[in-house]
């Protein structure tokens, strides 16, 4: 794990959430970032697959089903590189707490589930800043599937792993593919030093545990190095 990413030697912090679709991670990181912001910290948010430079290419590739496991992996790494270079790195250097909904681990799980070489994809992301905390929302497959298959829109081609020819049935393909991704997350959990959250608990319980972990592992730097919103009436504040 030591040489996997670039160490974060900057003032700011990086907190990421990981887990399969339907694990509830987006809800939790959103709650956490709002809590940090209302506590006065400079907080930024970065979502997987959201670079404006890469967006059109990804969308077109998905719509026309042009991706292979390798190009799917590479375009997401390109997207990630853009967010790292233009957004995450400068903000962490400036002292912000950057909260990321999915990080390189998503590629390690998803791309490997597609057949990409695990060491190749780890090297691909070695320019990424190492997160200060990586939460993993551990969810039994059936729980996650019932959350996803219940209400949402139709399953998409690549998120269901339809490109792999697992099954002609989208829902069946989605089950198998999510199962493979889950197995990859479970296999890397110890290697990556994930903070594991039992995602079958109530939203409130999960959030309480996350906040406790944040305070415990970042407590000192929250007082000293992390950038805060200027508060005019506060005297003697440390930098």
């Amino acid at each position, binding site marked *: 794990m030591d040489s996997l990413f670039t160490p974060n030697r900057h003032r700011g912090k990086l907190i990421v959430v990981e887990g399969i679709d339907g694990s509830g991670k987006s809800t939790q990181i959103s709650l956490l970032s709002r809590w940090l912001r209302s506590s006065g910290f400079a907080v930024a948010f970065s979502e997987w697959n959201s670079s404006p430079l890469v967006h059109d290419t990804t969308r077109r590739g998905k719509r026309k089903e042009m991706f292979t496991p390798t190009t799917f992996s*590479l375009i997401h790494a390109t997207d990630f590189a853009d967010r790292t270079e233009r957004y995450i790195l400068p903000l962490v250097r400036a002292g912000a707490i950057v909260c990321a909904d999915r990080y390189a681990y998503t590629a390690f799980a998803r791309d490997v589930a597609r057949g990409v070489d695990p060491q*190749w994809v780890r090297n691909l992301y070695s320019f990424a800043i190492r997160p200060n905390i990586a939460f993993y929302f551990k969810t039994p497959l059936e729980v996650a599937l019932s959350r996803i298959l219940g209400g949402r829109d139709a399953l998409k081609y690549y998120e269901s792993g339809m490109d792999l020819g697992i099954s002609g049935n989208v829902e069946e393909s989605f089950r198998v593919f999510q199962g493979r991704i889950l197995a990859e997350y479970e296999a890397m959990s110890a290697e990556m030093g994930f903070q594991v959250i039992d995602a079958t608990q109530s939203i409130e319980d999960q959030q309480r545990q996350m906040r406790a972990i944040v305070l415990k592992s970042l407590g000192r730097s929250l007082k000293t190095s992390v950038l805060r919103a200027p508060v005019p009436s506060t005297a003697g504040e440390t930098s």
Partner: protein
Amino acid sequence: MAITSGKLILPKPLEPYAEALPGVDTTNLSGKLIVIEGPDAVGRSTQVAKLRHWLEQEGHAVLDTGMARSALAGKGIARAKDGNTLGPVTMTLYYVTDFADRIENEIVPALRAGFVVITDRYIFSIMARAIARGEDPQWIERVCGFGLVPHAVYYLRTKVKDLVSRVVIGRGAFDYWESGMDCHFGDDMYESFVKYQTRIIRALDRMANRYGFIDIDAGKPPEAIFLELQRRITSLQLTKVNGTAAKAAVRSSL
């Protein structure tokens, strides 16, 4: 994985340098893969055009390809370069995406059908640009490890001062990206061009031994370079294929 100095023990032509592309069958490829490498403005595309014409006259089916020409990423790269926010790692990976798409969807199917594939630049230019911009040589070499070993890499070797005169006389102006202005190697485009292209040439020179490039002196007249390339390519003993049949085979394999 070895580092980017010292000679590599190369796999056989058309085998990957390192990890194979998942889900891509690269066995039984009967074509030939020929790479023309060299820095910007050295005259590669002139030679590629001449070679294509000559090989087709000789009865070979030819695919010529080059950077940023993929159906997947070509337009995205052009758009990203029009803006002012394209970072070095992002640019590198965009080009690798483009290369992977061309390998999987153009180059491998053409090789399967027995084409002679001539590519204007290959992984070496992607790596040289990344290294010139300060990225880790081992990182980018490993990222590009799925590339297939060509039958020959012809390296148009030159000095930066000759590139400067080619650009000034031939094009009349320096190009923003060819000058590495995104990294501001110098105060103006000339100074930045010289420093950036010096780094590119240094990176390519280091790869020459490692990857077994065949040196071609780019200072010679274009016609003499072409004759040398013809002579060298003839010695590769390309098998003639029926162009029409081969093209039909490529279509059916796509």
